[in-house]
């Protein structure tokens, strides 16, 4: 909760600290003086800063981020429209990254320093180092025009039968998803590899072998136990993943938060910007919370209240 308040405060500070009036430079063309005056009144920009802050805080915590004169809609409505698309992309990418990464890292960790492990580690390193949007660019160069260059659906999608609509969706989805997932998998694989390698050295693994379990069963036990730190880590990487997703969305014209942000930036729609920052932070907090809850549910060592 503190975080959200901080985010709200931060966005306020940023907007008002930026050069120029919050309303100046807004939009591609200068706005008519009447509009400006009306907006000034609506935002109470002529009142002392502290009052404005109080107002902003109160409204923002209720989800009201003001009105975007450029889009002619409340900011919160814009955010609400963009959020599902981002969640779709990010959510799927996160799930697949964790899934693949854990499997890969687990495989590597059980065979630490073997030739297979070393080559995979090298691959991981490369994939981990490539910024997501660079990967996206490369994928675009390789796969367009076989796959669509951007957007979420084709223009004619609505007229297609269901099956083809689904296929169309998938074709648009796959490249941005791939950009995020390849890098994400490398990130989780690295973590999991280290966790798995350490777990394999724990005494209970020796006990398992002494009981007569074969290597596969031993590894499965070790994997289960080594998963727990990864869950916590997953929560912590949320902010970084969000950042990567934003740029990828811009690259692929995916109609989510990233695109919204980009538009807001280019048209200098500060209020949308502020709203987006707050929403982003909230998502991070929720992500962490989810990770904590999951961990508590799965790890018997965690105290249950």
């Amino acid at each position: 909760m503190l975080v959200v308040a901080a985010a709200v405060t931060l966005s306020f500070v940023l907007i008002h600290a930026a050069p120029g009036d919050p309303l100046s430079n807004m939009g591609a063309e200068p706005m008519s003086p009447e509009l400006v005056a009306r907006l000034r009144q609506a935002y109470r920009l002529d009142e002392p800063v502290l009052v404005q802050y109080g107002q902003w805080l109160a409204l923002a915590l209720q989800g009201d981020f003001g009105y975007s004169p450029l889009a002619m809609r409340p900011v919160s409505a814009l955010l609400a429209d963009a959020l599902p698309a981002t969640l779709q992309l990010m959510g799927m990418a996160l799930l697949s990254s964790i899934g693949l990464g854990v499997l890969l890292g687990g495989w590597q960790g059980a065979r630490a320093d073997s030739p297979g492990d070393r080559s995979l580690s090298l691959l991981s390193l490369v994939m981990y180092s490539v910024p997501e949007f660079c990967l996206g660019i490369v994928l675009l160069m390789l796969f367009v025009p076989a796959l669509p260059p951007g957007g979420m659906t084709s223009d004619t999608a609505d007229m297609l039968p269901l099956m083809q609509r689904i296929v169309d969706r998938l074709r648009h989805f796959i490249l941005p998803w791939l950009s995020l997932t390849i890098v994400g998998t490398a990130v989780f694989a690295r973590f999991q590899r280290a966790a798995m390698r350490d777990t394999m050295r724990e005494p209970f693994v020796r006990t398992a072998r002494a009981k007569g379990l074969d290597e596969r069963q031993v590894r499965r036990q070790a994997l289960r136990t080594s998963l727990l730190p990864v869950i916590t880590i997953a929560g912590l990487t949320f902010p970084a993943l969000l950042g990567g997703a934003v740029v990828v969305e811009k690259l692929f014209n995916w109609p989510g938060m990233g695109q919204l942000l980009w538009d807001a930036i280019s048209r200098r729609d500060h209020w949308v910007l502020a709203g987006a920052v707050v929403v982003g932070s909230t998502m991070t907090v929720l992500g962490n919370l989810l990770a904590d809850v999951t961990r508590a549910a799965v790890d018997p060592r965690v105290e249950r209240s």
Partner: protein
Amino acid sequence: MTSTSLDSHASTSQPGAPLLSVESLGVSFPSAGGTSRAVDGVSFTIASGETVCLVGESGCGKSMTALSLLRLVPPPGRIDVGSRIEFGGQSLLSLADEPLRSIRGRRMAMIFQEPMTALNPVLTVGDQVAEVVRVHTKATRAAAWERAVTMLGGVGIADPAARAKQYPHELSGGMRQRVMIAMALVLEPELVIADEPTTALDVTIQAQILELLRELRDRTGMALLLITHDLGVVAEMASRVIVMYAGRVVEEAPVQSLFSRATHPYTEGLLAAIPRLGSEQERLRTIVGSVPPATALPSGCKFRDRCPYAFDRCAVEEPALLQIGPAHRARCHLVEEPERRVSSPDRSA
């Protein structure tokens, strides 16, 4: 699986032949500074139903010896070529993975020293005991669980059905060790190796655990290889004792002979160091010096730097295991030259 009948897992060995036979066992650890031998030329046998104690200070190689029996030596350590381990007539070292796996836990089991880390923290103790059953038999989950609960009761855990659903961190140290014992004994193996099973426990719990082991041993007729550094445990449990130092066997004897007629100076030192009530000694007797590192062993007899009787031959020639009595041997030149048993003044503690 039937109940406690030895015939149900009759081994392929001849009657009269030992259950376990270890010959010239060596375990080496390569390192940057050279190869160190944690175990060097160790040989011994264990008969069915016999309790043998392996005694020595930390670092003498007793744990490595035990791990070798189940081929659990951690890399980069390796069992040396030329070692021989025979169990029930089968050579363990040349066994393929699958047959080896079927022996572990079923015919030969191990109890580890630190139950908190030796148990999987995220599985219930019931699951961990039941796992042994499911891996080696065709029992259903339910049947295996039943058996696990019964076994937990058999090792003296009260309310075993409820306890079985708990996790290791919810149990006390003594109970965790009982769980380990349950895991090892649930399939009634022919040989149980216990690596310092009581060292991590309080003294009162120690007594209980030893009592439990004795009881189970008498009930199932299993052979027991008990590894310890505590001579009190030896006195209570062993029928035969093997003393190790610097990776070698330095004395082996039936337990009575060891305590009454210890021959090797190291064993003498160990026995002398036990405080006795009512004696007129004022100071505890110790063995001078400390165990040499495996990479810097002295020439000849490895104990000579700490031995009160060492003489010139000891520096040159390492003694062989020499016969003293019917089942009593010691690795010391004094067996052949008893007149040399004169302590040099600077060596007695």
